[in-house]
């Protein structure tokens, strides 16, 4: 019963008409700029240089010798490598805590979800207030434990900026992990767990042999989504340190922004942006092939 055989032109092309407008917008905003980016990256436009002559691969050569760029990439990887496992483990522990019946469970969960929907720039600003060395409560609380007045310069001291950024990041996104893992834990087959208990398996053994494998696909998806988000990290860092002190906390997004919109190295920024897109697309394509995201 295929409609195509007897259908009119309109009927046969219906499926393309439906896809058309969306594809058009995506091409306009998603692909056209990339082509433009490619072109600009071969030119030599800067704040003072407006000539659009092509200068070959100079910008790409500069990529490889730009230590600040690779450091920004490294900072991004460091933050991801520390924040992501903590979010995962903490989220899993919280999911386990709220899995069984608990008085007020729905209210706890409703409150714990809130950080996820706060705009990242707002949460960055919030943590800037909390970490303020003099008027913020964090130094005050640390002072109580130390038993004396404590002034820690969270957003200035090179040893403390990363803990500050990572704390804000963990606060905002652990609830994300928590929600996904709670849903995953809730759908684990209870009879298997009970059978394991009857066989005398302890809690940890049951957890590692039965529960963890069962929720592994969800964990993979959660890590994938968060990993990609962390790779694009901008707002929280912008609100807390703007990449400082110096360039110590510049992530790849912050670096690109400063190059393009503060220093106006237009063509070089285009090359950086393309590098980021190529790196990330390769990663995404590889991962999408490995993980079946949503069927």
């Amino acid at each position, binding site marked *: *019963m295929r409609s195509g055989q007897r259908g009119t032109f309109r009927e046969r092309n219906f499926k393309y008409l439906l*896809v058309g407008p969306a594809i058009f917008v995506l091409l306009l905003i998603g692909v056209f700029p990339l082509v433009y980016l490619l072109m600009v990256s071969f030119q030599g436009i800067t704040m003072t240089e407006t000539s659009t002559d092509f200068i070959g691969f100079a910008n790409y050569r500069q990529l490889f010798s730009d230590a600040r760029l690779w450091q920004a990439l490294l900072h991004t990887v460091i933050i991801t490598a520390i924040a992501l496992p903590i979010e995962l483990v903490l989220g899993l522990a919280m999911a386990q805590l709220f899995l069984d019946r608990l008085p007020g469970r729905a209210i*706890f969960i409703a409150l714990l979800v*809130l950080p996820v*929907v706060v705009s990242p720039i707002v949460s960055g600003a919030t943590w800037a207030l909390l970490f303020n060395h003099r008027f*913020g409560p964090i130094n005050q609380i640390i002072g109580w434990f130390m038993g004396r007045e404590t002034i820690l310069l969270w957003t200035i001291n090179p040893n403390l900026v990363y803990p500050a950024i990572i704390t804000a990041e963990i606060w905002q996104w652990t609830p994300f992990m928590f929600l996904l893992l709670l849903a995953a834990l809730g759908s684990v087959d209870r009879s298997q767990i009970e059978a394991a208990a009857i066989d005398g398996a302890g809690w940890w053994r049951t957890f590692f042999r039965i529960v963890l494998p069962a929720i592994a696909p969800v964990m993979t998806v959660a890590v994938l*989504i968060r990993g990609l988000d962390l790779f694009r990290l901008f707002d929280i860092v*912008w609100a807390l340190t703007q990449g400082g002190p110096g360039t110590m906390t510049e992530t790849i997004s912050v670096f690109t922004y400063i190059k393009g919109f503060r220093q106006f190295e237009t063509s070089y920024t285009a090359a950086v942006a393309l590098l980021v897109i190529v790196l990330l697309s390769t990663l*995404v394509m590889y991962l999408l092939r490995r993980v079946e995201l949503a069927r």
Partner: protein
Amino acid sequence: MTPLAGRHRVRLCLRLVAAVALTLIFMFPIYWLYMISFKTASEIYAFPPKWYPSSFNFDTYRVLFRDGDAATVGNSLIVAFCSTALAMFLGFICAYSLARFSTGGKHLANWIISQRMIPPIAVVFPIFLLYVWFGLVDTYVGVILLYTAFNLPYVIWMMRSYILDVPRALEESALVDGYTRWQVLWKVLLPMCRAGLAATTIFTFVFAWNDFIFALVLTRTEVATYTVQITHYFGGQSNFWAKISAMSVLGTLPIFVVTAFMQRYFVRGISLGAVKG
């Protein structure tokens, strides 16, 4: 009381204590942020810090409304609303085609979702140059178009996953009854996807509402959103903290209220449909 029931009770109490402690820790930043907006300048800059205002004072809010800063929340509303409506319409019909006719095969679907993964900073740069060219910087049209494009992959991906859950038989019997494909889409399928549409709409809206980097680059004064407005207060001294706080309250409170009502849609929404919530 048997020893087993006693142990059970102790465990429940411990879990409850842990739950309360966790919730307090996670709520504290929001509490602190909100409270600053009600403090007077001397309370904000008190040392040691004061944990609550002596009385609720709304002066900061009054200033925000008087100076027109609060209008940026209106800008956020306009661009988030329009781009969501547009993305939902275009995304829904596209998702239908992908789900029912496998238009473009797996490659098109994968290409669409990969669009979502591109870092905003990389696309916003050429788009900015493009917008300068076309005079779209700091216009509603420019921002709405960009948010629509940025949200489309998400909407298409989500709606495709929901439509795939609706049995085909319903649509086929409607076709036999003489409905056109277009009518089937709106009269049969749309009502079946109501939950999915609601969830996807909310998330699309929240993305646009919370966005900072696109708005930072593409707006100046006319259509500056509340997230951009907040960063204008950064780095200052005196009463700027109160403004950051009050503006954040205006920007987050609507989302909190919506979230409270949409709780059950959350899991599927934030997991790109990978986890059926």
